């Protein structure tokens, strides 16, 4: 983490829940359960998400997307945890508004995402009633009802409670920001999960800012992870710019959660873009901070790493990008041509029969 903070931050260590197995060195030096195919697969997802994210921003400037929160800088955290969840196969996700990489990679096409950002009919989360990708995507096991900060946390705990009651061994991953940690409901959710030892992983994507408010004005702490002790469960700091570390921490957390109850993972990330398309971060971010952070851009470092390990070639890196770009172009055109929902649908589904 190359961000200047009030207190100097050491490179955050990845810690492993007590009792978890040590890292299994596979052929490629990867943690247990992870294959090089997974890495390539998730690298492709990451590239795709980045292109979509950039395109959405551009479409906002063209007046075609009213609002967007970018996930740039958060991709490794989002995709590393998602990878662990998908490999586990029995996880349910409660992401937040910045989790484009989670939501899209959980199973949406670029076109579905574009429909959502443009507010068009057939958009998968709410049929364009809500902010982009907000509502529910049940086929892909995702719920995010609102963008009211921290409102999803207690709900995710309730979901886990119900899973436990029904005996289905699902583990719930709930995502939130450093700002969200200050909300009372975050406390209530963690406390309840702790008391009932529910299978929930609290994933804080700590990017050091809540819009303009820096971490030192949000909490009198260096590491949010330390708060877990106050709820009687473990908390770990994870380098959120490193997909493999995020995978590994989540992988271990999933088995801990299923057997012993909640885990808090604080993934230290960086927000490369302003808070949303409505924001101007020059008002509050020190000059050069973002440039410095971008030196650890997960899309770049992951490509370097894959090439370095000899898993893919530089040429393949280019091909992956080119392929993704074509898909994004096509998705943009299709979504642009689509229509918003008809006005008469305004009155549907206030109540279910």
């Amino acid at each position, binding site marked *: 983490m190359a961000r200047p903070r009030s207190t100097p931050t050491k490179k955050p260590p990845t810690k492993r829940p007590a009792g978890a197995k040590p890292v299994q060195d596979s052929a490629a030096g990867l943690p247990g359960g992870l294959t090089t195919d997974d890495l390539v697969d998730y690298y492709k997802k990451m590239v795709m998400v980045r292109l979509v994210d950039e395109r959405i921003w551009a479409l906002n400037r063209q007046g075609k997307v009213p609002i967007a929160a970018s996930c740039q800088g958060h991709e490794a955290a989002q995709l590393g945890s998602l990878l662990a969840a998908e490999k586990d196969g029995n996880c349910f996700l409660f992401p937040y508004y910045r989790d484009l990489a989670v939501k899209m990679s959980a199973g949406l096409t670029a076109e579905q995402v574009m429909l959502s950002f443009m507010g068009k009919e057939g958009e998968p*989360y*709410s*049929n364009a*009633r*809500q902010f982009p990708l*907000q*509502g*529910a995507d*049940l086929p892909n096991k995702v*719920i995010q*009802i*609102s963008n*009211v900060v921290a*409102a999803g*946390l*207690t*709900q*995710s*705990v*309730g*979901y*886990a*409670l*119900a*899973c436990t*009651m*029904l005996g289905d061994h699902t583990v719930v991953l709930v995502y939130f920001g450093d700002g969200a940690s200050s909300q*009372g*409901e975050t406390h*209530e*959710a963690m*406390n*309840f999960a702790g*008391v009932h030892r529910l299978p929930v992983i609290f994933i804080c994507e700590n990017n050091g800012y809540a819009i303009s408010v820096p971490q030192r004005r949000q909490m009198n702490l260096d590491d949010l992870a330390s708060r877990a002790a106050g709820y009687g469960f473990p908390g770990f700091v994870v380098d959120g710019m490193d997909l493999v570390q995020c995978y590994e921490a989540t992988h271990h957390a999933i088995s801990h959660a299923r057997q012993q109850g909640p885990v808090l993972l604080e993934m230290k990330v960086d927000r490369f873009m302003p808070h949303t398309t409505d924001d101007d971060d020059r008002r509050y971010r020190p000059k050069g901070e973002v440039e410095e952070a971008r030196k650890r851009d997960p899309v770049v470092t992951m490509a370097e790493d894959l090439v370095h390990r000899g898993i893919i070639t530089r040429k393949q890196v280019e091909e992956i990008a080119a392929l993704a770009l074509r898909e994004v172009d096509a998705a943009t055109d299709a979504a642009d041509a689509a229509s918003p929902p008809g006005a008469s649908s305004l009155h*549907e*589904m*206030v*109540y*279910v*029969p």
Partner: protein
Amino acid sequence: MAVVSVIEAVREAIREEMRRDSNVFVLGEDVGQRGGVFLATQGLLEEFGGERVIDTPLAEAAIMGIALGAAYRGMRPIPEVQFSDFVWPAVNQLIGEAARVCYGTHGSLNVPMVVRIPYGGGIRGGLFHSQNVEAMFFHTPGLKVIAPATPFDAKGLLKSAIRDNNPVISLEHKKTYRLVRGEVPEDEYTLPIGKADIKRPGESITTVSYGLMLHYCLEAAEQVSQEGIDVEVVDLRTLKPLDKETVVESVKKTGRLLIVHEDNITGGVGAEVAAVAAAEAFEFLDAPIARLCGPDVPTMPFAETLESAYMPSTETVAVALRNLAAY
């Protein structure tokens, strides 16, 4: 038919539904071991176990959010708010979230949950154990709100609420819990949400009320009937959706409307009832629409003098009826 109190009717409704459907469960502060501070959930822990009768930490927002999340997974939670006065920390989950789940997912999720809220005054509860909180929920699309006044209605409506696939706020007037007793059939029954009930037919004035006030209206109607004033007493029973038809039909018949509630007058449920009548029964009105409601002070104070000064009563309802009849 057995004669039971409102609290017994509530308890029976929950018990029957928990027996019928294993996805129904209750959660809240002191609902388990203690059986609820009003004993609405007494005996449930023993019968259904700690998994389905959950004593929660003291955190209303969590109680509601957890109920919501469980509902997403197909459960049918019945969260309890110990007193209406403590619902405020939970309104983000209720108004901001629960009410919008179905709409905000275009129907792919819905929230079959019943939030039980003991409310209302007249029990020396003072400013923080007496509140009426119906106006806020009444104003929130996506919620349903029931507010029964009798054991029969309480049981039938609560059972319907538990079976309803939408979030329902169940307002139970604390003072009726033990005070009001009535017959309840042995056999299973439910009552439709959204239907008012004419508790007393009459020709000369329509009175609309709900909850504890319904009983005062009935008593007052009895009083003034001896003076030749024939009052029709409409018990809303459900506040949301409001049964406009029953209200409007009654007003069309009587030409006079008195609305009675305990909640503060300004912006209360009565304002909407008046607005509906002023729009839809305009040509039939023979007198200004009258409201007898709680005054615009925060709520009933603790001192007995102040509490009675706040509360509408049989006497003040009777006076209002006489005035309206004399117009």
